[in-house]
């Protein structure tokens, strides 16, 4: 089966006349980008965990207040690059003024689990890319795939396909060094090997469709989506 795109770009939705649409778009933006931004602030700007968490929240508030997403011009840069440049400018301005605005109360309904992000950071730190754009891109991909896996799990639960998802987890999410064979998964789950491979093929097909759909949400135009999808699914990173 084919998976038609269901998501619109957050850039388009942020420009909507409808306040609810704008709010949901902003939440989607935060959900997609907060981890790459937090990790980028920790690794590139060397902020402490608390300072990076504060700056992440404040940056999203700044995006909202200054309508930076609405002012994005797809002809000038990719949306991901534009956000990173906005972030660099934001942090540089903060440091230049030597002031940090403390605003309590949270600025979004999306829960941001900075403790988890900090734990992930410890695991990736030995392989930090030298290029800042590569660093931001890698974390952006990780966040995208992370959300796609979560979507796949939620869909599997809704459609009573937990066994299929379990095959996917045991094979495709396993560490390469400890990845079991199809036969071993079949024995563990009481499935013929052909069923294991069929389940895996179906999950991968759906995973790909979800990734491309989620990607549409966090890119600024069709051309950008196509370019990002090509890079994402062909390597070069």
């Amino acid at each position, binding site marked *: 089966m084919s998976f038609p795109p269901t998501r619109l770009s957050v850039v388009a939705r942020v420009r909507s006349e409808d306040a609810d649409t704008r709010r949901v778009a902003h939440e989607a933006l935060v959900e997609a980008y907060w981890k790459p931004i937090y990790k980028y602030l920790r690794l590139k700007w060397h902020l402490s965990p608390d300072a990076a968490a504060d700056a992440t929240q404040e940056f999203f508030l700044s995006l909202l207040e200054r309508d930076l997403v609405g002012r994005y011009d797809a002809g000038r840069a990719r949306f991901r690059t534009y956000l990173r440049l906005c972030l660099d400018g934001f942090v540089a301005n903060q440091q230049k003024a030597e002031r940090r605005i403390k605003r309590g109360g949270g600025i979004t309904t999306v829960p941001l689990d900075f403790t988890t992000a900090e734990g992930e950071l410890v695991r990736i730190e030995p392989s930090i890319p030298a290029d800042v754009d590569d660093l931001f891109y890698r974390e952006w991909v*990780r966040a995208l795939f992370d959300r796609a896996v979560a979507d796949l799990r939620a869909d599997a639960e809704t459609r009573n396909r937990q066994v299929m998802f379990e095959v996917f987890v045991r094979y495709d999410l396993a560490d390469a060094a400890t990845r079991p064979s199809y036969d071993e998964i079949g024995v563990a789950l009481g499935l013929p090997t052909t069923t294991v491979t069929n389940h895996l093929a179906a999950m991968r097909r759906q995973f790909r469709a979800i990734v491309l759909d989620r990607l549409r949400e966090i890119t600024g135009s069709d051309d950008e989506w196509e370019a990002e999808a090509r890079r994402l699914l062909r390597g070069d990173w």
Partner: protein
Amino acid sequence: MSFLSDTTLAHLREVAVWPPLPAKYTPLGVAGRGGSATVYEARDHDLDRMVAVKVLDIPDQAGRAAARLAREAAVLARLDHPGIVPIHERGILPDGRAFYVMKFVRGRTIDEAAAAKPALLDRLALLDRVLETVAFAHAHGIVHRDLKPSNVLVGGFGEVFVMDWGAAQSDHVPEAEAVIAGTPGFMAPEQAAGAVVDGRADVYALGTILLTMIGSDPPRALTAIAARARAAHPDARYPDVPALAADLHRFRDGLAPTAHRESIGERVLRLYRRHELPVLLVVAYILMRAALLLWKGI
């Protein structure tokens, strides 16, 4: 949710791009990657043979890459020649990506194959097969437009295949929109300018391929042939591929190519090389007669 490590990310990316081919094909690996598509090596279980499957990397929203793949398939279907891989079928995968299935060819690119052949005439023989194939396509109204060493494969038995007809211009398969196709360095100037081209654009690219195959210190006659093929204005080039091939054959056969006005020294040397044995026999005869006369004189 468990943390996705870099290796897991890389694995997910690989499996996400893996194509859900029709059941009779099992993809076995990646054979090559192009600008917008990947070629997979696959087994055809029905006919128990290897095939190559070219698949777009993403469903093409604007339809440009899909249209290009369809055009390529149509061109391949029109050209029944030993130097062009036959197409078996084409279609759309369940995830929306266009694909086509063709004969699987294993080989080296022509520049790699040429590098393994020390004799210049052996290398020219390889190029001659390419010229035959391209001339055949031109006779069917098709201009390749992206000839370069990486698009010419040489098989294990010396068979030569001209690949990647995705940029081809065809009299019979109209283009949906004007495109500038080709590769800088191999692309004729009029092609780079976006003009509708004819077979002389391929002549230009073939001249460039010739240059890559004849080494760093080639005979001047070959350099002249390449220069004529690569003339900036199409009218100054060979009018077609057979004319280029004929000049290369003249060089091969020890005749003067039309592209090169040779000096007296070059002409003498060429004639000597062409008639080396008779010349040596005559010289030997003259020397023997001279020696005999001298001996009688003494």
